[in-house]
């Protein structure tokens, strides 16, 4: 009964938390757009639809057109997809690797912990930009998947650190000793005793990785290290700047994608704060 009470107690506070409500709605809104948008938009993102160059928003082209006459709104919708994809895959890989390394280092301690710590520190310290430039030189064609993989494999140290710390403190609890005395294997103990107790932590870590991945991807896209065969919000902004939107004042080209990124990542972080309040009774405002 307590689990139900706890679940409903959590849901009670979660659903009433303003930050969670606002954040979640914004994210869901953009997610809807990304999922069903392409069906509502008839123009392909790279199609040249309007020969008259960069046009401000109108009833036909809601976000206007680029200087090549492409429909920005359709680019925007398809770009949303790419951004969410990077978030899920990059954030997912980051969280997964962070969990793997963090749990093992935290549970085992000793020499295993030392070795994993060294690896974590090395990855943290590597200048990811330099590595990416080298990769870009070798891979002429890069996809959204490549970008997600790269982000995932370089962003996990933060998650690993946090999860390791939590695992350390949970490991000394009596119920873990009880599981050890029941001849349970360590991996099983991590999965069945430690991870469930950290559920809230893991969810919040994933959200942070998700938002972080989108941000990193946008930055990479903007400076030209993004995918070569796709459209993403960061790429739209890159093209805008590259093709003179700033000089010509075509604000409709770079403001919508920029605002969208800000809104999505901001909403994700707000959701996280709201979730923290819902999970942690001490932070709730009475």
């Amino acid at each position, binding site marked *: *009964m307590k689990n139900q009470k706890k679940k409903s107690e959590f849901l009670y506070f979660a659903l009433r938390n303003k930050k969670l409500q606002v954040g979640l709605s914004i994210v869901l809104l953009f997610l809807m757009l990304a999922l069903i948008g392409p069906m509502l938009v008839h123009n392909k993102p790279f199609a040249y639809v309007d020969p008259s160059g960069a046009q401000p928003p109108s009833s036909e082209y809601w976000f206007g057109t680029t200087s090549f006459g492409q429909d920005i709104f359709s680019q925007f919708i398809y770009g949303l997809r790419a951004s969410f994809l990077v978030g899920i895959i990059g954030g997912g890989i980051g969280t997964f690797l962070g969990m793997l390394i963090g749990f093992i280092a935290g549970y085992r301690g000793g020499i295993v912990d030392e070795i994993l710590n060294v690896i974590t520190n090395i990855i943290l310290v590597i200048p990811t930009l330099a590595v990416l430039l080298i990769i870009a030189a070798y891979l002429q064609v890069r996809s959204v998947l490549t970008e997600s993989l790269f982000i995932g494999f370089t962003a996990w140290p933060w998650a690993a650190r946090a999860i390791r710390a939590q695992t350390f403190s949970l490991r000394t609890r009596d119920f873990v*000793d009880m599981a050890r005395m029941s*001849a349970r294997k360590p991996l099983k103990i991590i999965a069945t005793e430690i991870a469930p107790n950290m559920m809230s932590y893991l969810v919040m870590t994933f959200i942070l990785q998700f938002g972080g991945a989108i941000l990193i991807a946008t930055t990479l896209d903007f400076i030209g290290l993004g995918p070569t065969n796709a459209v993403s919000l960061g790429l739209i902004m890159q093209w805008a700047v590259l093709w003179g939107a700033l000089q010509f004042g075509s604000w409709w080209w770079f403001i919508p994608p920029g605002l969208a990124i800000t809104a999505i990542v901001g909403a994700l972080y707000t959701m996280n704060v709201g979730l923290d309040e819902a999970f942690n009774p001490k932070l709730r405002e009475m």
Partner: protein
Amino acid sequence: MLRLDHVSKIYKTGTFGGKELHAVNDVSFDVKNREIVSLIGESGSGKSTLGKMILRLLSVTKGTISFDDIDVSTLKGVGLKEYYRNVQGVFQDPFSSYNPIFKADRIFSIIREEFFPGVDGAEWTQKVDKSLESVGLNPEHVLNKFPHQLSGGQLQRFLIARALLLDTKFLVADEIISMLDASTRIDVLNLLVDLKDRGLSILFITHDLSLGYYISDKSLILYRGCIMESGSTQKIYKKPMHPYSKMLMASVPRLDRKWEKMDIDLKGEHSKSPMGCAYYARCQLASKDESCIRSNPPLVEVEPDHFVACIKL
């Protein structure tokens, strides 16, 4: 059944691990069949560390712990599982022994998954019910509940029932009743004696002298990781010989007599002697005698079944 031979647990402390902390220092004793042995010590005496080493939750730095003549530290895999079939433990805080997000019965299902995978539902329910009844719990009242819905006494008995599901021959009870209310303590204590009559051996770790006296056949008095006095409970309590034991007996508040006016040196509590007798800094018998810190005093038999580690006697 269980034997400890010169067991020590040494931790490296200080920057770069230069200094050593002996949590347990050269402890040897044994527990036979159907025996309750009390391990009496205050905080810092190493009693919990000993319990955890016996339960294979901590590694042994020096010495050997043997169960039925097999060195416990060599057990792995299947051998270790067999060990846990025979040796189990119950700890001090009943609430922290349960994973708070699950129901209390989960501790039974863990045992079932690991030790009885082939047993079918009805047979298992019977087994569990029998175990619960043998510790004085009514299955209808305690099954299917979360830990916070049960009382401390019920939770501790639940844990004992879990040990009884296996073929437990040896139970390590680490301060299991110190967090319970006075009215429930006695019931759990009586249960332990009951179990002994049914064939269990128990290592009863406690800081409370009167509890140790109530249920144990043999006692060991521990101070700073070393055994000060050991032997039959009756003999130790009736005639304590070690200065530390004497101080303990005189300082314990009792309901049948008032404290004597005894001057206890409190200044010595913080200092530690580098080697030799652990009690040297506070001992009134030693009074700066160098021979006490030259080496660890050995356990000497002063009368049948009564050993003391003090060279001044």
